Structure formats: C-alpha cells, structure tokens
C-alpha cells in the first residue's frame, strides 16, 4: 500500500465518519442527561429527507439544512414529550420514532415527487460543495505534507469540519460549563439536581433538543453533502453504529471521535479492499469487516477492553414523588 492509497483511504474515512460522529455526539448529549435515544436513526432519516426535499425545491442547501434540522428537532421534541413529560419507556419511544421516520419519509416523498420515495437529484447550490483550503493547489506539490494538506484536510464539505469542531466544543460544554455539570448531574442523579432547585424536565428537554440539532446536521450531510438527494432508508443503520460508537467511547467526546474514525476507517477499508489477504489467516471476507464495529462493541460490553458504564439514571423517567 503506497502513500497515495493511504491518503485516499483516510480521506474516505473522514467523509464516512462524519455522519457517525455527529449522531454519536447527539446521542452523547441525550444519554449524558439520562435519556436513552434509539431514535438517532429516525431523526437522521427525517432530516435527510426534509433537507433534500427543501433543497430540491429552493435550490439552496442551507435552507435545506434548516428544514432538515427543524424536522429532526420536531422528532426530538416528540421523544422528549413521550419520555420526559409522560414518563414513557425511552427505548420504545425511540423505536417508534425510527419506524415513523422510515415510513413517513417514503410516503411524503412519493406524494411530493412521485419518484418512489426518493427526491430529485440535487445539483449546484442545492448541495454542500467541497471547500478547498487556501493554496491547496500550490502546496500539493510538497512531498508528504502537501498531499496531507490538499487531499486529506482540504476539499471536504462544510459539515465535516463542523463535526470535527463539535468534538472539542462538546467536551468544553460538558466538562467546563455550569450547564454541562447540570446536564451530567441530571443523568447521574436527578434527585440531587431537583433538590438543588433546578428543573430536571427543562434540562432533559434541552439535551434532547441538542441531540435533535446534531442529528439534523448528520442527516443533512448524508443527503446534501455526501449524496445528491434522498433515497429511502438511506441512513442504512448509521444511527445504530453511532450508538455502538457511543458505548465504545464510554460516553466521552474525545473517545467518540476516535471510535467514529475507527468505524469510518473500517467502512472505508471494506469499500476499497473487498477481500483482504492476511498472511497466515487467508482471505478475510468483506462481511467480516462490515460486522467488525458490532463485534467490537460486544467485546467492550462483555468487559474485555475496560468497562463501559452508562450514566446511572439513564433510561429511567424522573418523577418527583417516590413510589
């Protein structure tokens, strides 16, 4: 494998990791506040559809992004309503959101565009186009550093950079601000937060909406950045991989970046090298590479590589009265 191939592979890794990373951070906010969210997949899908549909209609990827995010926020609010206000089961609410998004996007898509649930192909300003860094052409001739700068770092769409910037931002918000402390507390010990005179409900809603916002970005990136239009069920399990990455990362932003990059790398490798020959083992089939993220997550959950302990109050609706 030569240097150019490695650069190509890492370049592809960045692109493929971005939706995972955004969704993973979305889940991180929500779960840190004690709201389990299986519905990442559904929120991404809804955002992917509405961003592509509105971008197709208006010709603007930014208006599409706003519409997609709004759709994702609406589903996040619904999840909040079911699991915070009405204290329903968070897992069931999340699964319902996934089904709702999968069915609704196909139905509305067919009704609007008559293309079997897909949106028209986007072109020009209706898509997020690659951003080329300054001097990327002139600097590309410098050995080693040139290709890293011009091929690997430059030339991605806006959302890739947003996703990476969101990692330190999330760390700062969660671990260096008062809001972050309250958010984490509400996921560990909501009674204490309540005793301190803060609203558990308000904090959890805020976390849910931040989750919706990030899922919205992830979905819009899928439909208007990575691809050029929406197709039915285009998230293809990315929401679940993001959940796996979240567990793998033990609910920490820095590790989340690493986990998503690892899962993205596995996907990029599986795409480029369909059958990998490993000396002494024989040929590793591509299916194994595709299953690897899940296998790694199971290994983590089984406690082989450290222990993944979820926020203590995760999954439990909070009620003031003791039963």
């Amino acid at each position, binding site marked *: 494998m030569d240097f*150019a191939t490695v650069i190509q592979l890492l370049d592809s890794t960045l692109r493929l990791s971005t939706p995972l990373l955004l969704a993973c951070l979305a889940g991180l906010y929500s779960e840190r506040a004690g709201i389990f969210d299986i519905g990442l997949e559904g929120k991404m899908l809804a955002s992917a559809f509405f961003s592509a549909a509105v971008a197709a209609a208006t010709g603007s990827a930014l208006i599409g992004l706003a519409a997609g995010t709004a759709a994702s926020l609406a589903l996040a609010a619904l999840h909040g309503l079911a699991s915070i206000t009405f204290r329903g089961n968070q897992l069931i609410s999340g699964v319902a959101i996934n089904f709702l998004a999968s069915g609704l996007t196909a139905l509305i898509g067919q009704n609007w565009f008559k293309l*079997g649930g*897909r949106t028209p192909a986007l072109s020009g300003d209706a898509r997020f186009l690659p951003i080329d860094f300054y001097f990327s052409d002139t600097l590309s001739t410098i050995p080693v550093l040139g290709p890293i700068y011009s091929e690997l770092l430059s030339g991605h769409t806006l959302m890739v950079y947003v996703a990476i910037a969101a990692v330190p931002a999330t760390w700062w918000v969660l671990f260096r601000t008062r809001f972050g402390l309250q958010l984490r507390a509400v996921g560990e010990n909501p009674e204490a937060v309540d005793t301190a005179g803060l609203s558990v409900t308000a904090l959890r809603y805020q976390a849910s909406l931040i989750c919706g916002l990030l899922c919205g970005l992830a979905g819009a990136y899928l439909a208007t950045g990575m*691809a*050029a*239009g929406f197709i039915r069920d*285009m998230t*293809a399990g990315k929401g679940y991989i993001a959940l796996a990455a979240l567990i793998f990362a033990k609910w920490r932003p820095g590790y989340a970046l690493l986990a998503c990059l690892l899962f993205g790398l596995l996907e990029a490798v599986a795409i480029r090298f369909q059958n990998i020959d490993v000396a002494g083992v024989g040929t590793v089939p591509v299916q194994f590479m595709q299953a690897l993220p899940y296998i790694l997550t199971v290994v983590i959950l089984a406690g082989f590589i450290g222990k993944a302990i979820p926020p203590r109050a995760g999954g439990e609706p909070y009620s003031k009265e003791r039963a």
Partner: protein
Amino acid sequence: MGKIHSVLAGVAALSLAGGPAMSEPAIIYDIGGKFDKSFNESAYNGAETWKEQANGDYREIELQSEAQREQAIRRLAEAGNNPIAMPGFSFGTPLNTVAPEFPDTKFVIIDMVVDQPNVRSVLFKEHEGSYVVGVLAAMASDSGTVGFVGGMDIPLIRKFSCGYVQGVMETNPDARVIQNMTGTTGAAWNDPVKGAELARAQVAEGADVIYHAAGGTGVGVLQAAADAGVLGIGVDANQNYLQPGSVLTSMVKRVGSAVLSAFSDGPELETGIVEMGFADGGISYALDEHNAPLVTDEMKAAADSAVEKIMAGEIMVHNYLTSDSCPYG
C-alpha cells in the same frame, strides 16, 4: 399497433365482463424500487406503455423485503392476475415453487431461467452490450484505466463485467480495468453513497471512464464520476440524461419491451426461453443529445462495427454464465 392492442383489450374485457376472475396483468418490482432510474424503472415504463396502448390496467407490487417474494407471486396469482411479470433474477427460486401451483396462470421472469411449462424466461445478451460500451470506454479513456462498479456480486453482474472487460481489452490491449462490487446482499442495489465512494476510489486509481451495473447504486456512481470530471456509463435504462455531458453512453437493456410484449400477449403468451440481443433491439447503446459531444464519429463507427460483427458472429463475446469464469480477468 396501438389500435390492434386496444381492440384486443376491448375484446378481452368484454369476454371477461361476466366472469369473476379479472385477467389483468400484474408486475412485481424487485427490491431497489420502481423508480431506481434503472432496471425496475425500465420495467415500469414498459408496463405504462402497455397501459396507454391497450387502455388497460395492471396491478403492481413493490417488494420491501426478500421474505415477500413468494407471498407476492401467490397473492397476485390467487387474485386471478394473468400474466404476472417479475423482473429480477431473485424471483427464480420462489417462482419455481409457486408456478406449478397455478398451472393456468402465465408467469414471465426476466434475467433468469425457470423451467416450468407456464413460465416465459426472458434473457438479455448483456455481455454483448457490455462489450460494445467497453469498446467506447477504451476509446474515450485518456489514462488507459477504466472502471466497473457492479451491484450485488452475482454471476449475472459478472456477465456484464466480463463482456465489458473483453470489449476494453480487445480495443486497447494495454488498458487496465478496475472492478468493484458494491456488496453481497440486495441492499447493494440501492446504496448510492457507497457507489459514489467506489467510484471516487477508482478515479483516485486513475480510472477516467466508469461503467456501472448496479441499479440505484449507480446513481451515486454517475454522480461521483461527474463530480470528479470523468465519464460514467449508464446501464439498463438510458441514463445519459442523469448527468448530461458526463455520461458517455448507456448500455440499454429493454426490460420494458419484455414487459410490454408479455402484457400485450396476455394470458395466451408463449412460454419458454426468449433471448433478446442487438438483433431484436433488446440491447443497444444509447446515443442522444446528452452524449452527442462525447461520442466522436470514429467511436461511433467502432461501436457500430462491433455491433454488426457480434450479430454476424464474427466477434464471440464470452458469456460468464456458460463457464462461471471470465478469461479476461
């Protein structure tokens, strides 16, 4: 033509008016969806053409999962639909099970042979069409490297790739063909993001013409090729319009005309194996206003002479299905 059809349909409607069984034709679309801009959409267009010509009506089912195949065929047959068309090799096994249960119903399967007395199996000579677009790809390529992106890794798609590689190599023996398959499950027909990634990877390796035989996944392949400023080649339907000026040509497989002729023949259609190729217009390469600037006179002449030689038997294009192997790598 249209008139005869409408008269026939009128007669058919009259004769059936009293009976309970409605002999409407029906079609089952494969996973990937009715509007995949490719294989299924071509079948859909054929059915729509029949609807206009015969002024008739037909029923349709769009599959959502593998488990529904047998159920869908049985449901339509029980409802009295006749004939029932199903484009897609995956229907082979379920149809083989269901067909004997409804001996009076005629079934049409495309891309697969089902040996039952009431089944018409329509095959296309995709290897020959792929050969011709391979000739065009080799001539259009500046780098001498061309690519192929297949959908699901099955012998039928290998038939495309093998013919393509033969066409490329016999035009430019020094050429290199990069081949990739999208996956090994039905999902590989509807994954444009992955198709785009594969195309980008091939472009990075130097490919400047990329042929896809990947259904809906191919939309992403053509998109990525256009984004990267290289040429794509469409498949099944004429896809030149998808990225005007960036699609060299399309290997057109008239799935629609197979559906149209099945529907027009009605319940009395002849069964057995039907093979469609260049001679009967079942296969062709697309030339229209979208790719006119890309195909030079010299290229067109070469492609047309390849078509003639194939029809005359002077060029033998290897059919992957006969040997389960491809001598061209």
